Protein backbone atom coordinates (compact mmCIF):
# COMPACT_ATOMS: atom_id res chain seq x y z
CA UNK A 1 0.00 0.00 0.00
CA UNK A 2 1.27 3.40 -0.63
CA UNK A 3 3.22 3.98 -3.75
CA UNK A 4 4.10 7.63 -3.22
CA UNK A 5 6.75 9.45 -5.18
CA UNK A 6 8.76 12.59 -4.31
CA UNK A 7 8.40 15.62 -6.56
CA UNK A 8 9.12 19.33 -6.57
CA UNK A 9 6.32 21.90 -6.60
CA UNK A 10 6.78 24.12 -9.64
CA UNK A 11 3.64 26.22 -9.49
CA UNK A 12 0.40 26.51 -7.53
CA UNK A 13 -3.04 27.41 -8.87
CA UNK A 14 -6.68 27.20 -7.95
CA UNK A 15 -9.11 24.83 -9.67
CA UNK A 16 -12.69 25.77 -8.69
CA UNK A 17 -11.71 26.35 -5.08
CA UNK A 18 -9.31 23.40 -4.83
CA UNK A 19 -5.62 24.14 -4.38
CA UNK A 20 -3.66 22.38 -7.15
CA UNK A 21 -0.01 22.36 -8.12
CA UNK A 22 2.19 21.34 -11.01
CA UNK A 23 4.74 18.96 -9.55
CA UNK A 24 7.91 17.84 -11.30
CA UNK A 25 9.01 14.24 -10.70
CA UNK A 26 12.47 13.97 -12.22
CA UNK A 27 11.35 15.61 -15.46
CA UNK A 28 7.78 14.32 -15.54
CA UNK A 29 5.24 16.99 -14.65
CA UNK A 30 1.81 16.18 -13.32
CA UNK A 31 -1.06 18.12 -11.80
CA UNK A 32 -1.37 17.29 -8.12
CA UNK A 33 -3.97 18.23 -5.51
CA UNK A 34 -2.34 20.29 -2.74
CA UNK A 35 -5.45 20.68 -0.58
CA UNK A 36 -3.90 18.72 2.27
CA UNK A 37 -0.72 20.82 2.44
CA UNK A 38 -1.96 24.40 2.86
CA UNK A 39 1.55 25.62 3.77
CA UNK A 40 3.45 24.07 0.88
CA UNK A 41 5.27 26.52 -1.35
CA UNK A 42 6.84 26.57 -4.79
CA UNK A 43 10.25 24.92 -4.58
CA UNK A 44 9.28 22.54 -1.77
CA UNK A 45 9.47 18.78 -2.24
CA UNK A 46 6.44 16.66 -1.47
CA UNK A 47 5.35 13.01 -1.44
CA UNK A 48 2.48 12.34 -3.86
CA UNK A 49 0.09 9.37 -3.70
CA UNK A 50 -2.66 8.86 -6.30
CA UNK A 51 -2.55 12.49 -7.37
CA UNK A 52 -2.54 13.99 -3.86
CA UNK A 53 0.35 15.57 -1.98
CA UNK A 54 0.22 14.06 1.52
CA UNK A 55 3.41 15.27 3.17
CA UNK A 56 6.13 17.84 2.68
CA UNK A 57 9.63 16.40 2.64
CA UNK A 58 11.63 17.83 5.49
CA UNK A 59 15.02 18.61 3.98
CA UNK A 60 16.77 18.86 7.36
CA UNK A 61 15.55 15.40 8.37
CA UNK A 62 16.60 14.03 5.01
CA UNK A 63 20.11 15.40 5.45
CA UNK A 64 20.23 14.01 8.97
CA UNK A 65 19.23 10.55 7.75
CA UNK A 66 21.89 10.56 5.04
CA UNK A 67 24.45 11.75 7.58
CA UNK A 68 23.75 8.79 9.86
CA UNK A 69 24.38 6.49 6.91
CA UNK A 70 27.71 8.18 6.34
CA UNK A 71 28.61 7.79 10.00
CA UNK A 72 27.82 4.11 9.69
CA UNK A 73 30.50 3.94 7.04
CA UNK A 74 33.04 5.61 9.33
CA UNK A 75 32.02 3.29 12.16
CA UNK A 76 32.47 0.29 9.95
CA UNK A 77 35.91 1.38 8.82
CA UNK A 78 36.85 1.94 12.44
CA UNK A 79 35.71 -1.53 13.39
CA UNK A 80 37.62 -3.02 10.49
CA UNK A 81 40.75 -1.24 11.62
CA UNK A 82 40.30 -2.61 15.13
CA UNK A 83 39.80 -6.09 13.74
CA UNK A 84 42.83 -5.88 11.53
CA UNK A 85 45.09 -4.23 14.12
CA UNK A 86 48.02 -6.38 15.21
Amino acid at each position, binding site marked *: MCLAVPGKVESIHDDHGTRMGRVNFGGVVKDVCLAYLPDIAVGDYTIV*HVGFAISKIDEASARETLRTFEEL*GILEEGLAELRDAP
Partner: protein
Amino acid sequence: MKHLAEYRDPETARRLAAEIGRIVTRPWAIMEVCGGQTHSIIRNGIDQLLPDEPGRRVEMIHGPGCPVCVTPLETIDKALAIAARPEVIFCSFGDMLRVPGSKENLFQVKGGGGDVRVVYSPLDAVKLAQRCPEREVVFLAIGFETTAPANAMAVKLAKEQGLTNFTMLVSHVLVPPAIEAIMRSPGHRVNAFLAAGHVCSVMGTWQYPPLAARFGVPIVVTGFEPLDLLEGIRRAVVQLEEGRAEVENAYSRVVSERGNEAAQRVIAEVFAPTDRAWRGIGTIPASGWRLSDAYRAFDAEQRFGVAGITAIESPLCKSGAVLQGTLKPDQCPAFGKECTPRTPLGATMVSSEGACAAYYNFRHG
Protein backbone atom coordinates in the same frame (compact mmCIF):
# COMPACT_ATOMS: atom_id res chain seq x y z
CA MET B 1 15.31 11.70 -8.95
CA LYS B 2 16.04 13.68 -5.83
CA HIS B 3 14.89 12.16 -2.53
CA LEU B 4 14.82 8.78 -4.23
CA ALA B 5 18.23 8.04 -5.75
CA GLU B 6 20.10 8.80 -2.52
CA TYR B 7 18.24 5.99 -0.78
CA ARG B 8 19.33 3.41 -3.35
CA ASP B 9 23.10 3.67 -2.93
CA PRO B 10 24.54 0.14 -3.16
CA GLU B 11 27.58 0.79 -0.98
CA THR B 12 25.47 2.17 1.88
CA ALA B 13 23.11 -0.78 1.48
CA ARG B 14 26.02 -3.13 1.84
CA ARG B 15 27.17 -1.36 5.00
CA LEU B 16 23.71 -1.39 6.56
CA ALA B 17 23.34 -5.08 5.80
CA ALA B 18 26.79 -5.76 7.23
CA GLU B 19 25.91 -3.82 10.38
CA ILE B 20 22.73 -5.88 10.82
CA GLY B 21 24.82 -9.02 10.38
CA ARG B 22 27.29 -7.77 12.97
CA ILE B 23 24.79 -7.09 15.74
CA VAL B 24 22.37 -10.00 15.41
CA THR B 25 22.88 -12.83 17.89
CA ARG B 26 19.57 -14.70 17.64
CA PRO B 27 16.85 -15.58 15.11
CA TRP B 28 14.36 -12.75 14.76
CA ALA B 29 11.20 -12.42 12.69
CA ILE B 30 10.17 -8.94 11.59
CA MET B 31 6.89 -8.19 9.84
CA GLU B 32 6.65 -5.35 7.37
CA VAL B 33 3.03 -4.29 7.35
CA CYS B 34 2.82 -2.49 4.05
CA GLY B 35 2.46 -4.17 0.65
CA GLY B 36 4.55 -1.43 -0.88
CA GLN B 37 7.36 -2.35 1.50
CA THR B 38 6.95 -6.02 0.58
CA HIS B 39 7.17 -5.06 -3.08
CA SER B 40 10.37 -3.09 -2.49
CA ILE B 41 11.94 -5.86 -0.41
CA ILE B 42 11.32 -8.43 -3.12
CA ARG B 43 12.09 -6.19 -6.05
CA ASN B 44 15.42 -5.09 -4.56
CA GLY B 45 16.29 -8.51 -3.19
CA ILE B 46 16.70 -7.04 0.30
CA ASP B 47 15.80 -10.26 2.05
CA GLN B 48 18.82 -11.79 0.31
CA LEU B 49 21.08 -9.30 2.10
CA LEU B 50 19.92 -10.18 5.63
CA PRO B 51 21.85 -12.60 7.86
CA ASP B 52 20.67 -16.18 7.53
CA GLU B 53 22.70 -18.56 9.66
CA PRO B 54 21.43 -21.16 12.12
CA GLY B 55 20.68 -19.23 15.30
CA ARG B 56 21.57 -15.82 13.84
CA ARG B 57 19.09 -14.63 11.29
CA VAL B 58 16.64 -11.91 10.39
CA GLU B 59 13.57 -13.21 8.63
CA MET B 60 11.04 -10.91 7.01
CA ILE B 61 7.42 -11.98 7.30
CA HIS B 62 5.25 -10.29 4.68
CA GLY B 63 2.26 -8.78 6.46
CA PRO B 64 -1.33 -8.05 5.43
CA GLY B 65 -0.59 -4.51 4.34
CA CYS B 66 -1.75 -5.04 0.84
CA PRO B 67 -5.30 -3.82 0.33
CA VAL B 68 -5.45 -6.05 -2.71
CA CYS B 69 -4.82 -9.07 -0.53
CA VAL B 70 -7.17 -8.19 2.29
CA THR B 71 -10.15 -6.65 0.48
CA PRO B 72 -13.01 -8.96 1.48
CA LEU B 73 -14.28 -11.42 -1.06
CA GLU B 74 -17.76 -9.84 -0.68
CA THR B 75 -16.43 -6.48 -1.74
CA ILE B 76 -14.96 -7.96 -4.91
CA ASP B 77 -18.23 -9.74 -5.66
CA LYS B 78 -20.16 -6.51 -5.09
CA ALA B 79 -17.74 -4.70 -7.39
CA LEU B 80 -18.22 -7.33 -10.07
CA ALA B 81 -22.01 -7.11 -9.80
CA ILE B 82 -21.94 -3.34 -10.16
CA ALA B 83 -19.37 -3.30 -12.95
CA ALA B 84 -21.43 -5.66 -15.08
CA ARG B 85 -24.33 -3.21 -15.23
CA PRO B 86 -24.62 -1.45 -18.61
CA GLU B 87 -25.19 2.02 -17.19
CA VAL B 88 -22.09 1.88 -15.01
CA ILE B 89 -18.55 3.08 -15.70
CA PHE B 90 -16.58 1.22 -13.04
CA CYS B 91 -13.30 2.90 -12.06
CA SER B 92 -10.56 1.23 -10.07
CA PHE B 93 -6.87 1.35 -9.31
CA GLY B 94 -4.99 -1.10 -11.51
CA ASP B 95 -4.03 -3.31 -8.55
CA MET B 96 -7.57 -4.61 -8.18
CA LEU B 97 -8.29 -5.79 -11.67
CA ARG B 98 -6.98 -9.33 -11.34
CA VAL B 99 -8.14 -10.05 -7.78
CA PRO B 100 -10.39 -13.09 -7.95
CA GLY B 101 -13.93 -12.85 -6.66
CA SER B 102 -16.03 -15.95 -6.05
CA LYS B 103 -16.24 -16.64 -9.78
CA GLU B 104 -14.33 -14.11 -11.81
CA ASN B 105 -12.39 -10.84 -11.67
CA LEU B 106 -12.84 -7.29 -12.98
CA PHE B 107 -10.67 -8.00 -16.00
CA GLN B 108 -13.04 -10.76 -17.02
CA VAL B 109 -16.06 -8.53 -16.48
CA LYS B 110 -14.35 -6.00 -18.76
CA GLY B 111 -13.84 -8.73 -21.32
CA GLY B 112 -17.51 -9.59 -21.09
CA GLY B 113 -18.52 -6.05 -22.02
CA GLY B 114 -18.43 -4.24 -18.68
CA ASP B 115 -17.06 -0.70 -18.82
CA VAL B 116 -14.18 -1.09 -16.37
CA ARG B 117 -11.50 1.60 -16.37
CA VAL B 118 -8.19 1.89 -14.59
CA VAL B 119 -7.61 5.30 -13.04
CA TYR B 120 -4.49 6.80 -11.51
CA SER B 121 -6.38 9.02 -9.05
CA PRO B 122 -9.93 9.05 -7.62
CA LEU B 123 -10.23 12.58 -9.01
CA ASP B 124 -10.14 11.04 -12.50
CA ALA B 125 -13.34 9.18 -11.62
CA VAL B 126 -15.00 12.40 -10.46
CA LYS B 127 -14.00 14.13 -13.71
CA LEU B 128 -15.49 11.22 -15.62
CA ALA B 129 -18.78 11.65 -13.74
CA GLN B 130 -18.78 15.34 -14.70
CA ARG B 131 -18.14 14.52 -18.37
CA CYS B 132 -20.66 11.65 -18.61
CA PRO B 133 -23.81 12.79 -16.81
CA GLU B 134 -25.86 10.06 -18.49
CA ARG B 135 -23.73 7.26 -16.96
CA GLU B 136 -23.32 6.08 -13.39
CA VAL B 137 -19.69 6.38 -12.36
CA VAL B 138 -18.62 4.09 -9.51
CA PHE B 139 -15.19 4.21 -7.88
CA LEU B 140 -13.73 1.29 -5.94
CA ALA B 141 -12.34 3.04 -2.87
CA ILE B 142 -9.99 0.59 -1.24
CA GLY B 143 -6.74 1.07 0.54
CA PHE B 144 -5.16 1.77 3.85
CA GLU B 145 -5.10 5.13 5.56
CA THR B 146 -2.71 6.47 2.90
CA THR B 147 -5.35 6.46 0.21
CA ALA B 148 -8.20 7.64 2.43
CA PRO B 149 -7.46 11.39 2.07
CA ALA B 150 -7.64 11.10 -1.72
CA ASN B 151 -10.81 9.02 -1.67
CA ALA B 152 -12.37 11.37 0.89
CA MET B 153 -11.58 14.45 -1.18
CA ALA B 154 -13.06 12.83 -4.28
CA VAL B 155 -16.44 12.23 -2.69
CA LYS B 156 -16.33 15.59 -0.90
CA LEU B 157 -15.81 17.35 -4.23
CA ALA B 158 -18.58 15.27 -5.80
CA LYS B 159 -20.92 16.42 -3.05
CA GLU B 160 -19.86 20.06 -3.38
CA GLN B 161 -20.43 19.92 -7.12
CA GLY B 162 -23.85 18.36 -6.64
CA LEU B 163 -23.00 15.30 -8.76
CA THR B 164 -25.81 12.75 -8.71
CA ASN B 165 -24.11 10.10 -10.84
CA PHE B 166 -21.01 9.43 -8.71
CA THR B 167 -20.80 6.78 -5.98
CA MET B 168 -18.04 4.87 -4.22
CA LEU B 169 -17.78 1.26 -3.12
CA VAL B 170 -15.78 1.73 0.06
CA SER B 171 -13.60 -0.87 1.73
CA HIS B 172 -10.88 0.94 3.64
CA VAL B 173 -8.79 -0.97 6.15
CA LEU B 174 -6.69 0.30 9.07
CA VAL B 175 -3.24 -0.72 10.21
CA PRO B 176 -3.32 -0.54 14.04
CA PRO B 177 -6.23 -3.01 14.40
CA ALA B 178 -4.42 -5.34 12.00
CA ILE B 179 -1.28 -5.27 14.13
CA GLU B 180 -3.41 -6.04 17.15
CA ALA B 181 -5.14 -8.95 15.42
CA ILE B 182 -1.82 -10.42 14.37
CA MET B 183 -0.35 -10.13 17.85
CA ARG B 184 -3.46 -11.79 19.33
CA SER B 185 -3.50 -14.69 16.88
CA PRO B 186 -2.11 -17.89 18.38
CA GLY B 187 0.97 -19.19 16.71
CA HIS B 188 2.15 -15.84 15.37
CA ARG B 189 5.92 -15.49 15.15
CA VAL B 190 6.34 -11.73 14.87
CA ASN B 191 9.01 -10.18 17.10
CA ALA B 192 8.91 -6.64 15.66
CA PHE B 193 7.05 -4.53 13.11
CA LEU B 194 8.06 -2.13 10.40
CA ALA B 195 5.14 0.28 10.38
CA ALA B 196 3.92 1.61 7.05
CA GLY B 197 5.68 4.90 6.36
CA HIS B 198 3.08 6.49 4.12
CA VAL B 199 0.16 5.42 6.31
CA CYS B 200 1.96 7.22 9.13
CA SER B 201 2.60 10.31 7.02
CA VAL B 202 -1.20 10.71 7.06
CA MET B 203 -2.09 9.37 10.52
CA GLY B 204 1.06 10.18 12.50
CA THR B 205 2.73 7.79 14.90
CA TRP B 206 0.68 8.42 18.02
CA GLN B 207 -1.42 5.25 17.59
CA TYR B 208 1.56 2.91 17.95
CA PRO B 209 3.10 3.38 21.44
CA PRO B 210 0.13 1.66 23.16
CA LEU B 211 0.56 -1.31 20.82
CA ALA B 212 4.30 -1.51 21.39
CA ALA B 213 3.72 -1.42 25.14
CA ARG B 214 0.80 -3.85 25.25
CA PHE B 215 2.43 -6.51 23.10
CA GLY B 216 6.08 -5.83 23.89
CA VAL B 217 7.12 -5.38 20.26
CA PRO B 218 9.41 -2.78 18.71
CA ILE B 219 7.59 -0.79 16.02
CA VAL B 220 9.80 1.16 13.60
CA VAL B 221 8.11 3.55 11.18
CA THR B 222 9.90 2.80 7.91
CA GLY B 223 10.03 4.11 4.36
CA PHE B 224 10.19 2.23 1.07
CA GLU B 225 13.53 2.68 -0.58
CA PRO B 226 16.26 0.07 0.00
CA LEU B 227 18.20 2.17 2.51
CA ASP B 228 15.00 3.12 4.34
CA LEU B 229 14.04 -0.54 4.70
CA LEU B 230 17.49 -1.65 5.78
CA GLU B 231 17.66 1.16 8.32
CA GLY B 232 14.22 0.28 9.66
CA ILE B 233 15.27 -3.36 9.97
CA ARG B 234 18.54 -2.35 11.64
CA ARG B 235 16.76 -0.26 14.26
CA ALA B 236 14.29 -3.06 14.94
CA VAL B 237 17.15 -5.53 15.42
CA VAL B 238 18.98 -3.13 17.75
CA GLN B 239 15.86 -2.91 19.92
CA LEU B 240 15.32 -6.66 19.85
CA GLU B 241 18.92 -7.34 20.83
CA GLU B 242 18.63 -4.80 23.65
CA GLY B 243 15.26 -6.12 24.84
CA ARG B 244 13.41 -2.86 24.17
CA ALA B 245 9.92 -2.40 22.71
CA GLU B 246 9.49 1.17 21.57
CA VAL B 247 8.15 3.14 18.64
CA GLU B 248 10.87 4.74 16.51
CA ASN B 249 10.50 6.95 13.46
CA ALA B 250 13.04 5.99 10.81
CA TYR B 251 11.20 7.95 8.08
CA SER B 252 11.32 11.37 9.72
CA ARG B 253 11.74 13.26 6.47
CA VAL B 254 8.09 12.41 5.68
CA VAL B 255 6.49 11.30 8.95
CA SER B 256 5.70 13.41 12.02
CA GLU B 257 4.18 12.32 15.32
CA ARG B 258 0.87 14.09 14.60
CA GLY B 259 0.66 13.30 10.90
CA ASN B 260 -1.32 15.35 8.38
CA GLU B 261 -4.08 16.96 10.41
CA ALA B 262 -5.81 18.54 7.42
CA ALA B 263 -6.18 15.06 5.93
CA GLN B 264 -7.35 13.58 9.23
CA ARG B 265 -10.08 16.24 9.48
CA VAL B 266 -11.49 15.44 6.05
CA ILE B 267 -11.27 11.71 6.74
CA ALA B 268 -13.26 12.22 9.96
CA GLU B 269 -15.90 14.12 8.02
CA VAL B 270 -16.27 11.64 5.17
CA PHE B 271 -15.61 8.27 6.80
CA ALA B 272 -16.79 6.49 9.94
CA PRO B 273 -15.29 3.44 11.66
CA THR B 274 -16.79 0.04 10.96
CA ASP B 275 -16.05 -3.61 11.51
CA ARG B 276 -14.30 -4.97 8.46
CA ALA B 277 -13.83 -8.52 7.19
CA TRP B 278 -10.23 -9.06 6.10
CA ARG B 279 -9.93 -11.67 3.41
CA GLY B 280 -8.32 -14.77 4.82
CA ILE B 281 -8.25 -13.38 8.36
CA GLY B 282 -11.83 -12.77 9.33
CA THR B 283 -13.67 -9.84 10.84
CA ILE B 284 -11.59 -7.45 12.91
CA PRO B 285 -13.72 -5.00 14.93
CA ALA B 286 -13.43 -1.29 14.08
CA SER B 287 -10.72 -2.06 11.55
CA GLY B 288 -12.22 -0.28 8.59
CA TRP B 289 -13.85 2.88 7.37
CA ARG B 290 -17.18 3.24 5.62
CA LEU B 291 -18.87 6.37 4.33
CA SER B 292 -20.28 8.50 7.14
CA ASP B 293 -24.00 9.19 7.36
CA ALA B 294 -23.51 12.62 5.79
CA TYR B 295 -22.21 10.90 2.67
CA ARG B 296 -24.59 7.97 2.48
CA ALA B 297 -26.00 9.23 -0.82
CA PHE B 298 -22.65 8.44 -2.41
CA ASP B 299 -22.54 4.86 -1.23
CA ALA B 300 -22.55 2.48 -4.18
CA GLU B 301 -23.74 -0.41 -2.02
CA GLN B 302 -26.97 1.44 -1.35
CA ARG B 303 -27.36 2.89 -4.87
CA PHE B 304 -27.02 -0.52 -6.51
CA GLY B 305 -28.57 -2.67 -3.81
CA VAL B 306 -25.59 -4.98 -3.40
CA ALA B 307 -25.30 -4.75 0.38
CA GLY B 308 -26.74 -8.23 0.73
CA ILE B 309 -24.06 -10.02 -1.27
CA THR B 310 -22.06 -12.44 0.85
CA ALA B 311 -19.32 -14.78 -0.19
CA ILE B 312 -17.66 -17.95 0.96
CA GLU B 313 -13.90 -18.27 0.71
CA SER B 314 -12.33 -21.19 -1.07
CA PRO B 315 -11.70 -23.83 1.61
CA LEU B 316 -8.40 -24.60 -0.10
CA CYS B 317 -7.08 -21.07 0.24
CA LYS B 318 -4.81 -20.51 3.23
CA SER B 319 -3.94 -16.90 2.52
CA GLY B 320 -5.16 -15.87 5.93
CA ALA B 321 -2.53 -17.95 7.68
CA VAL B 322 0.08 -16.70 5.24
CA LEU B 323 -0.93 -13.09 5.87
CA GLN B 324 -0.64 -13.60 9.61
CA GLY B 325 2.78 -15.12 9.19
CA THR B 326 1.85 -18.52 10.62
CA LEU B 327 2.19 -20.43 7.38
CA LYS B 328 4.80 -20.16 4.66
CA PRO B 329 3.36 -20.17 1.12
CA ASP B 330 5.07 -23.41 0.17
CA GLN B 331 3.54 -25.10 3.21
CA CYS B 332 0.06 -24.60 1.77
CA PRO B 333 -1.23 -27.82 0.14
CA ALA B 334 -2.63 -25.92 -2.83
CA PHE B 335 0.58 -23.98 -3.52
CA GLY B 336 1.82 -24.54 -7.04
CA LYS B 337 -0.99 -26.99 -7.76
CA GLU B 338 -4.55 -25.64 -7.68
CA CYS B 339 -3.13 -22.23 -6.86
CA THR B 340 -0.62 -20.51 -9.16
CA PRO B 341 -0.25 -16.91 -10.37
CA ARG B 342 -2.17 -17.85 -13.48
CA THR B 343 -4.96 -19.57 -11.51
CA PRO B 344 -4.93 -17.84 -8.12
CA LEU B 345 -7.25 -19.00 -5.34
CA GLY B 346 -6.65 -16.03 -3.12
CA ALA B 347 -5.28 -12.58 -3.26
CA THR B 348 -1.81 -13.42 -1.91
CA MET B 349 -1.20 -15.21 -5.19
CA VAL B 350 -2.80 -12.54 -7.37
CA SER B 351 -0.91 -9.55 -6.12
CA SER B 352 2.64 -9.49 -7.39
CA GLU B 353 3.78 -8.63 -3.89
CA GLY B 354 1.48 -11.12 -2.25
CA ALA B 355 3.63 -13.51 -0.29
CA CYS B 356 2.52 -16.53 -2.31
CA ALA B 357 3.19 -14.95 -5.68
CA ALA B 358 6.58 -13.77 -4.47
CA TYR B 359 7.50 -17.28 -3.31
CA TYR B 360 6.24 -18.84 -6.53
CA ASN B 361 8.15 -16.47 -8.77
CA PHE B 362 11.30 -16.91 -6.78
CA ARG B 363 11.22 -20.67 -6.99
CA HIS B 364 9.57 -21.39 -10.30
CA GLY B 365 9.98 -18.28 -12.37
